[in-house]
């Protein structure tokens, strides 16, 4: 056994030596010689970057083949009419921006889905953020059983999946019985105009599902809260700040980075969760022969741009800070 291993390592050494000492490239400790001609000295910096790239090379390869290449191809698809025939494989017919024009002129379903998606995001993201922050603040008080409550609130993260959520919604288990009994939804529908009432009633009928989406955010906020130094609050209290004031002046500003991370996480999660109607729409159209791949590629690009814009707006809203006015003192 030992002999076999020694033999293998001998061969490996030979191969390694050949790879680093041949006519094409010759690598020694201090320099690289290309084609026996061009000398290149190896600096520590150069070595480090080669090693760094070696570590991430597998990701770079994956990025090029499974992200960048599909992205470019998808743009190409979106400006073509793609037909798949059994015998000849895939056929392309350049149609320019027809697919995109079609989306905005004829695909009423998509526009409607998109509208309700944007409405949902505008309503749900702040609610998820506020609820998870409130729960985190509750958990951050001096209480017993903190770990127990925390693990209950985190539990849904483990089990949410498209089919499971679907089953729950079909069973009306997505809402609290009390809400139905008190006829909250009917009251809202009667009191508000339709475009306002619809998202709000949706919200109530899916309140549990919305809560279920906030497990990760609660833990993020809790971690953030625990990093705030307690002495800051004491100092503020001595200066006469009420708890209300210290929430707005201390807690909220220090949580800003976490609000940002949570907002991005929430938006991406809502945008890619498999019960999302736009995603379903794109998938059904993929296998629809009359429109085909090209059209659904165009759809997904429109969707991507919308999501990116929402993310951009959210990041701007949260990260934007009024700079305090400071007087410049000329010295």
């Amino acid at each position: 056994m030992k002999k076999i291993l020694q033999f293998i390592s001998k061969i490996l050494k030979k191969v390694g030596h050949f790879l680093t000492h041949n006519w094409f490239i010759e690598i020694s400790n201090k320099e690289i010689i290309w084609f026996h001609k061009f000398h290149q000295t190896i600096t520590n910096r150069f070595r480090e970057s080669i090693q760094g790239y070696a570590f991430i090379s597998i990701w770079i390869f994956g990025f090029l083949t499974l992200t960048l290449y599909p992205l470019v191809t998808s743009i190409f698809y979106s400006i073509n009419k793609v037909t798949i025939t059994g015998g000849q494989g895939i056929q392309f017919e350049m149609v320019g921006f027809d697919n995109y024009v079609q989306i905005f002129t004829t695909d009423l379903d998509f526009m409607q889905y998109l509208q309700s998606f944007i409405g949902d995001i505008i309503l749900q993201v702040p609610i998820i953020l506020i609820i998870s922050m409130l729960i985190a603040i509750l958990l951050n008080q001096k209480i017993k059983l903190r770990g127990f409550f925390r693990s209950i609130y985190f539990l849904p993260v483990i089990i949410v999946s498209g089919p499971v959520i679907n089953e729950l919604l079909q069973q009306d288990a997505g809402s609290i019985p009390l809400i139905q009994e008190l006829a909250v939804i009917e009251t809202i529908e009667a009191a508000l105009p339709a475009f306002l009432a619809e998202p709000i009633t949706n919200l109530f009928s899916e309140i549990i599902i919305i809560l279920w989406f906030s497990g990760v955010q609660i833990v993020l906020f809790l971690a953030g809260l625990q990093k705030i130094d307690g002495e800051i609050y004491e100092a503020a209290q001595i200066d006469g700040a009420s708890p209300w004031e210290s929430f707005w002046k201390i807690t909220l500003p220090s949580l800003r980075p976490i609000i940002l991370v949570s907002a991005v996480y929430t938006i991406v999660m809502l945008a890619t969760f498999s019960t999302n109607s736009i995603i379903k729409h794109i998938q059904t159209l993929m296998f629809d022969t009359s429109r085909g791949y090209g059209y659904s590629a165009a759809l997904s690009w429109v969707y991507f741009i919308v999501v990116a814009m929402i993310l951009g707006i959210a990041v701007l809203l949260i990260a934007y800070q009024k700079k305090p006015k400071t007087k410049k003192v000329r010295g």
Partner: protein
Amino acid sequence: MTQKLKLINKHSLRRKLFGYKLTDGLVFQIMIYVLLVTIGFVYVYPLLHMVSFSFQSLEDLLNPMVSQVPTTFYLQNYVDAFTVLKYFETMGSSLAVTLLPAIMQTLIASLVGYGFARFEFPLKKTLLALVVATYIIPPQVTMIPKYVLFFNIGILETVWSIILPATLGQGLNSAIFILIFYQFYKMIPKVLDEAAQIDGASRIYTYFKIAIPLSIPSFITSFLFSFVWYWNETYISTLFLGSGVETLQMRLADFVSEYSSILGSSQAINYANEAVRMAATMLIIAPMLIVYFIMQRWFIEGIDRAGITGE
């Protein structure tokens, strides 16, 4: 004298109830617990509903008096759900498209995270930004070309269509795991690496002998999350696995048609169907619940420790 005592008593009672500050009085404490328990109940309500529903026999379902707690411990729903899901057979393929990608994704994320954290190289900032970008791009955009690509190299409708992206660091939420490891390795002092190198260790050796042992907690957390997310993911797996590999989640998604084709349907059975579906849902989330209850602290403390929040 008694009057004075009364006054003191009254005073201390008030102090006890409302505390010296806002947050340490008894009333406040009780309020917090009430709130926490209420919210907790809302959180677990669907689960409780599911459990109680799944144990109800047909009589219980039809009986309006029985709304939550079943009268008998009725297991037939679970037996039915077992047969319709083909639980054990499907479990195998479900684990194959869950465990293997999770393992590969964790290993690769660690390698890539180490590369980003420990080395200085040109374009590092840009590449890191691209890592984050891969998280934001909706999978729908790249899905169709990937579908064609996988078809061309012949791995469509096999387990490899899920494992390959995970191995190349482009799996489900890979970016998050890379960032977790990146953050973690940045926190380990560089001195350790340098000491090893002075003793003659190569970079790879340092990674295996120093970085990996120190980052075992990150490995566990990443693996668990990866495992859970892959288990719950249905959109991409439905597309890439098609009819080739069937997972439990996919069988749950078309449970109704499967149910009538396997067990036949009549009016009464249709009614019981809902209870059976709840039982099936329970069966599918059961493995995750077990994992969660055993490894619970790794899930939650993992997020704390991952330092995503520290950016």
